[in-house]
Every structure is written in C-alpha cells, then in structure tokens.
C-alpha cells in the first residue's frame, strides 16, 4: 500500500497551519505590557540565555513604541524574531516571571516579543563599528548559531564568509521548525535582515568536507566559527527500522517545508518526547493523517516537550501515550504495517518493562528521538576535531575547539540545550572570545 503524497501548498498552510499561530492582537498589547512590573534585576532576563532586557522592551510597548522594543531585543539577540516564534518561553522567561503564581499568570513575554519583532528591520540592529578590520573570518553553517555569529562578527568590522551546505540559509528555522511557527517566510526575512550590509558573503551549496576543507579554511582565514548543526538522525536500533513508511522526522519536515511532496499515512505513530516529536505529530495531523499517536517511553514530566506543547498536540487530536517502548516494526512487502510496543513502568526512577507487548496496525512511523553529530561526513576535517563524551565538538567555556583559531557553537556543541536561543547565546560568547583572541594577534 502506498501512502498519499501531499504538498504543503499555500492554501493548505493558510487553512490548516495558520490557525495555530500564537499571536497577540496589537490592540491587546498595551494592556498586556502594562501587566509587567518592570522588575529590578528581573528574573526573566536571568532566565533568557541571551539576556534580552525584557522589562525594557515591554515598557517600550507600553509607551507605544514597538519598534524601539524590537531595537532593544535585537541589541541582545539578533535572532529575536525567530526566538519569539520558537522559544519555549513557558520553560524560560515566562516561567520565571514574578507573576507566575499571581492571578492572570505570567506576562505573555513571548507574544509581546513576537509583536515587537513584527516591526523588525535592518535599521534596528545596533550600528556596526566604523572600523573595518583586515581580518577575515569563515563561518560554516548558516543556521541560527552561524547567522548570529556572522552578523555579530560583521558588526565588529570583520569580513565574513558564511558557508552553507543547503541552497538556503536559515538552518533548522528554515527546514526543521514546525511550519506553523514560521509562517510568512519568517526565517528568510530574518536572514535577509541579519546579512544586510557588505561585510558578509553568503555562499550556499558549499558543504564542509565536500566543497571546502577545514584545513584550507584555517589557512585562508584568521579564524573559523563552526556552526555545523547536527546531520545524523538517532536510530531506534530495532528491527524494521528501514521499512518504507518509517522516517526520521527532521528530514521529513525539511522536505515538507521546501514544498516537496511528502507521504502522509492514515494511522501514524511518532516515537519520541521532545519538541520535534510534537512538531511532526501536529504537522502530519494537519497534513491529513487520520490517527496520530505519539509514544514516549517515560512519563509526561520527563518529556522534552513542555506541557504547553503537549497540550497543543492534544488540541490537534494527537493521542499521547506515555510508558510505551518500541520493540519492532512489522513489514509486509517492504512497507510497515504494524508497530510492536512494550508497556513500561517507572521503578526507582528507571523504566522497566511490564505487561504484554501491544501490536498496533500503522502505515507510517516517525522517529523523533534526536539528532547526532556526524563527524564522518567531513572526512579528515571531522577526524581532526576533538569530540566530547556525547560525540559533539568539544569546546571550552569560550567555545574554542581543540584546534587553534577554530571556534564552534550551536547544536554541534553540547554546552546547552538545542534551542535557537542557546545557539545565539553560544555565538555571542564565541564572538566575544574571538574578538579578544584576534586583538592579541594583531
């Protein structure tokens, strides 16, 4: 049985994805902004990995100047626009809002930021330094970390060559994040803003290990910033994983967002418990899957997806099953027809099997159990980098790798969670460190 092929058309996007957008009507903004207590030493700022002056930008909204709010946000976080769309604020700034336990709950910081960033334009970024430095820097990977890094370096007067393996910049914002969070080509608008000016040369279709070599970059440039992201998909390591109809979520979402036809099953199981699991479960449902089950081997608290994300999935009719471990996938003529799941229970904080395995008839299975760094892809370049215990690029606190003159940040290093906001924070830190080191060199 072959699955129906669906294209994420503009019509489908409007009809089914648009309603999931979480936007604050402009008319409600002043009232919401006035709920902010304008705290001293505000805990929301501490909670933000990029230290956005949240009370400061909210006050600008309250006094009727949302563009100044955007300016304030961009001072701390050049990707404030996509962060406003994809940040799990309920576990970051909003969770730490002093109004958390108060009536009305925390200030809706994420939505206020989103509203401010609708005003974004290249003019609102802090002015670049007038000084033009002779040093050239190579940034590899035009995802959030690479874009932030390139932008910040250019602002500091460096000439930057930004290499991207894909045809378009944006990284996961362009290809991995749920389409309903990045409507209206939001990722490309942001990229255009970030790369405004003549100090950054974006070179797409240039893959490390294929078109460019790390050793060459090191000799051609004064410094290299690796923001490679993660290419490998973790595997379930169970029988049947290679059957047709069993797919890793991230490449599927990328194809869907590029507008390519993607297969959509009728009865779908998603394995995983993070944001990507939610993203694929919700989107496959929006694309027309009749039944979508999300299976996670542990309980709801252990899930990487926040309670709000889980609720969003439920609201779209996704059935979430906790304590189900995939055993094997059954095939017929090369297609997957069923998945076997082992119920588990929590015992002394460990998941142990309990009860009889269940057989669910399915025609599509998605794996969303994380991505991994894949150094083999870069051949000798990959081999030359020292990796950490999790197989990602090892860096020090200032994001220096084991190779002199090479920094790395974003998902390809493991110093923080794999959120856009952390990628930006990594890049900020790395750029500061590069600035310091390069000054010493001259």
């Amino acid at each position, binding site marked *: 049985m072959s699955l129906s092929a669906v294209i994420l058309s503009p019509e489908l996007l409007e009809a089914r994805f648009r309603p999931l957008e979480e936007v604050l009507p402009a008319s409600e903004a002043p*009232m919401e902004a*006035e709920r902010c*207590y*304008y*705290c*001293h*030493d505000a*805990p929301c700022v501490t909670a933000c990995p990029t230290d956005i002056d949240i009370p400061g930008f909210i006050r600008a909204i309250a006094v009727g100047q949302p563009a100044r709010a955007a300016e304030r946000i961009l001072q701390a976080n050049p990707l404030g626009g996509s962060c406003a769309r994809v940040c799990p604020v309920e576990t970051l700034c909003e969770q730490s809002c*002093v109004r958390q*336990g108060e009536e009305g709950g925390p200030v809706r910081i994420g939505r206020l930021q989103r509203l401010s960033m609708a005003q974004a334009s290249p003019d609102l970024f802090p002015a670049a330094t007038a000084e033009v430095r002779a040093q050239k820097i190579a940034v590899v990977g035009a995802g959030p970390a690479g874009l932030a890094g390139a932008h910040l370096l250019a602002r500091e007067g460096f000439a930057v060559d930004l290499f991207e393996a894909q045809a378009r910049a944006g990284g996961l914002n362009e290809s991995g994040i749920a389409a309903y969070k990045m409507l209206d080509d939001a990722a490309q608008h942001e990229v255009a803003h970030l790369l405004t000016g003549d100090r950054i040369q974006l070179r797409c279709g240039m893959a490390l290990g294929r078109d460019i070599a790390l050793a060459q970059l090191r000799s051609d440039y004064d410094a290299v910033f690796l923001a490679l992201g993660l290419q490998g998909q973790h595997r379930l390591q169970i029988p049947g994983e290679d059957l047709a109809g069993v797919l890793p979520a991230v490449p599927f979402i990328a194809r869907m967002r590029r507008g390519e036809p993607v297969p959509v099953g009728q009865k779908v199981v998603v394995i995983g418990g993070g944001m990507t699991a939610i993203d694929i479960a919700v989107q496959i449902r929006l694309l027309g899957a009749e039944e979508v089950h999300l299976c996670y081997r542990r309980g709801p608290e252990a899930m990487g997806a926040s309670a709000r994300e889980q609720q969003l999935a439920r609201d779209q009719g996704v059935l979430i099953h906790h304590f189900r471990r995939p055993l094997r996938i059954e095939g017929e003529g090369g297609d997957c027809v069923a998945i076997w799941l082992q119920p588990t229970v929590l015992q002394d904080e460990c998941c142990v099997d309990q009860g009889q395995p269940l057989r669910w008839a399915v025609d599509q299975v998605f794996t969303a159990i994380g991505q991994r760094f894949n150094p083999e892809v870069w051949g000798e370049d990959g081999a030359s980098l020292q990796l950490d215990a999790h197989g990602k690029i090892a860096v020090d606190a200032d994001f220096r790798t084991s190779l002199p003159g090479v920094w790395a940040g974003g998902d390809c290093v493991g110093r923080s969670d794999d959120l856009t906001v952390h990628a930006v924070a990594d890049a900020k830190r790395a750029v500061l460190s590069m600035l310091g080191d390069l000054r010493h060199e001259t």
Partner: protein
Amino acid sequence: MKPDLSTEFVGIRSPNPFWLASAPPTDRAVNVQRAFKAGWGGVVWKTLGIDPPVVNVNGPRYGFWQGDNRRVQGFSNIELISDRSILSNLREIAEIKAQWPDRAVVVSVMFPLEESVWAEWLPRVEATGADGIELNLGCPHGMSERGMGSAMGQAPELVEMVTRLAKAHTGLPVIVKLTPNVTDITWGAVAAQAGGADAVSLINTINSIVSVDLERMAPMPTVDGKGTHGGYCGPAVKPIALNMVAEIARHPALAGLPISGIGGVGTWRDTAEFMALGASNVQVCTAAMLYGFRIIEDLVGGLQTWMTEQGHTRLEDFIGRAVPNVSDWSQLNLNFVTKAKIDVDRCIGCGRCYIACEDTSHQAIGRVADSGRYQVRAEDCVGCNLCVAVCPVSDCISMAAMAGGVDPRTGVSITAQPMNWTQHPNNPMAPCPSGEGQGD
C-alpha cells in the same frame, strides 16, 4: 435595614447625596429625565446665561488623559455654559421639577455684574419651582475671558458682591461654586459667606492643558490647529479637591458653612472621603460622562454597603469625622516612628521596592540571597512609605509603628509622649526648655 442616604442640604431634600454637577449631563430635560429615572438624588442644571446664548466650538470640546487599560484618569473641557436660550431652559426646569418633586433641582447661573439682570432673572428661575441657585464663579475657560466664571471667583470682593446680589433677588438658598484656580480656597469661601451664601460647592475645574498633539504641535482638544486651556476634572483632580474641601471645613471662621463636594467622585470611597472631610453631599459629572447615569446604582449600593460594614445608619454618622484629624504639618507628632515591613510570604521578588529605595530614598532594603526576596533594614528605614507605593502586591509591604524600644536608625528611645515641631529643640521659634541653653 439599609442605611438611610437621604439628605437635606441647605433645606433642599434629596433621596441620596449624589447630585449631578452643572455640566453637559444636566444640559436639557431629556438627560435629566434619564438621570432621575436612573436614581440620581438631584441635579444642578447646566449654567444658564442671559440671551443671546453663547456659541460653542464645533470642533472637539474634550481632551483627556488615559492611564492603564485606556481608563480616563483626567478629563478636560472647553465647553461654555448652556448654549440654549434661557427661556427654553426655564421651561424644561419647571417641567422636570413638577415631575420629580422628591429630587433636588438646583439651577446654576452665570450673569454679568448688572443688578437689573439678576433682578429680572432670579425670580423667573424661582418660579420654575427649582430648589436653589448655584453661582458659577469657577468656569476657567471661555467665560472667564468675558469677565465671568473664574474671573469673578478669583477676586474675593467680586465673590462677595455677586453673592450679595443673588441673595438680594431670590429667597432660594444660594450655593457659591468656587474655583480652585486660586492660591487659597478659603478666601473665596470667606467672601461667599460674607455675601450671605448658604453654602459653597467645590471644586470647579482646574485650568489645564491636558495634552499636546505632537504632530500638529497644538494643545488638545485642537480646533483647526489651535487649542486653549480647558477645565480639568475626573479622578486626577480628587486629591486637590479633597484638600480644598478640608481647608474650608477646618477653617475657624467658616465653621458650619455647608459644603457640596465636587472633584473626581466616581466611587463610594470617593464619596465617603469627601464627606468625611466635611462635604454634606457630593456632585458628580465625569464618572457619569464616562460610564452613563447607571453608575448611580454602584455609588448608592457601594456607599450603603460601606456604611453597613461600619455600622453607620445615616450620613451624619460620618460627615466631617476626619476634619479634626486634618492638621498643620507643625502639629504632627515627630516622636511617632514607623518602619516598613515586607511580608516574605507575599513578596514575589520583583525588586521594585529595592530599586526605588536604593536609588531615590534611604538604601534601607536588601535582597535575601538565598530566597531572592527582599527585607527592610530598620536601621536605615525612615518610614517614608515609598516601598508601599511601588509594591505591586497587595498587603505585602506595610508600615508598622514602633510601640517601644529604641529606633535603630536614630538611637532615640520611642516615647509615648508626642512632640511636634513647635516643641522641637531644632525649631528656633520653639519655646526653650527651662534652664537650658541660656547665657552660654
């Protein structure tokens, strides 16, 4: 049994102490009819002038200041007195009074300083069956340029003269409405009393420019590119009005002069505050203009609820009760010591009190490192109350009076013996304690 709200103000009876002030809501019979149906105790009819009637601008008349949630905090107007002929007004007043005999109908007038005008028109006002006359000596815009309104109210001798003129030509009670656009409100009140006024009402509106249109670079409301100063009212003016009411209520020469309180009354609490400071009733305008006449239900219900909670059965139980406690600064007890106290269980850690005290006061608040909450250092706290003002949580910070012991800030023992400035050793004018400081 519900508390009795009925009042008798200079002989004018009304079922409750809420009158609509002389203003747009009382401009014509159709409005007053609706107001009385809604339950208002009385009206002061929009100020009558002699014919030909004044002409109002045809552009915007009102300006405003909106606070949080777009709620109007301050309201300003450049409207003049009634722009309808005096006869049509008098006809409507007579109809209304006949229809609503139990409600107070007071007629506001603004006439020039010509005795013949007063002699002609006051008897005709009286003939409508109206209960009293209010002299508009306060309107600060437009009419004042013609020598009337606040132009009269700002000159005590004119206040006295006009009051005398009015009293000479009517047997009705005369209430003199005072302008706040003066250095001392009591001067006008004393003059009104000297002229024979039965009561004063205050405050009229405050001269103001409520805002500036920064695109047209002109005051708001803007009429064809220009604006003029207008009369300010609404919640923002209440503190000014309360002080002026209290100044009259506690003035020795004005004892017993009835006061009708006006200025930002919009709730039962405002009402109770005006009355506690000596007003026998209140007049309302802005609140009705913002919410409609139905707000009378909230005012009446709110006042009755509060009175029941307090055990008051009639208005006299609390009218003027706060007046004896309104004092000059020099009489305040300098031996009374309070300290701010933060309830750690209610503190949400926003740090507003900390930064306010640290930057602008006495550096008396510190952060508790492990809890992220704040606490007061009594040895630095001067008891100023700023932290209470900025705290967003209700009942989190309070001021506690020290009953005994030593003030850790000054090292001075707390004493139950009061001492005010007139007795303080730092006051060069204070009488010297016997046997000290002489002849050194």
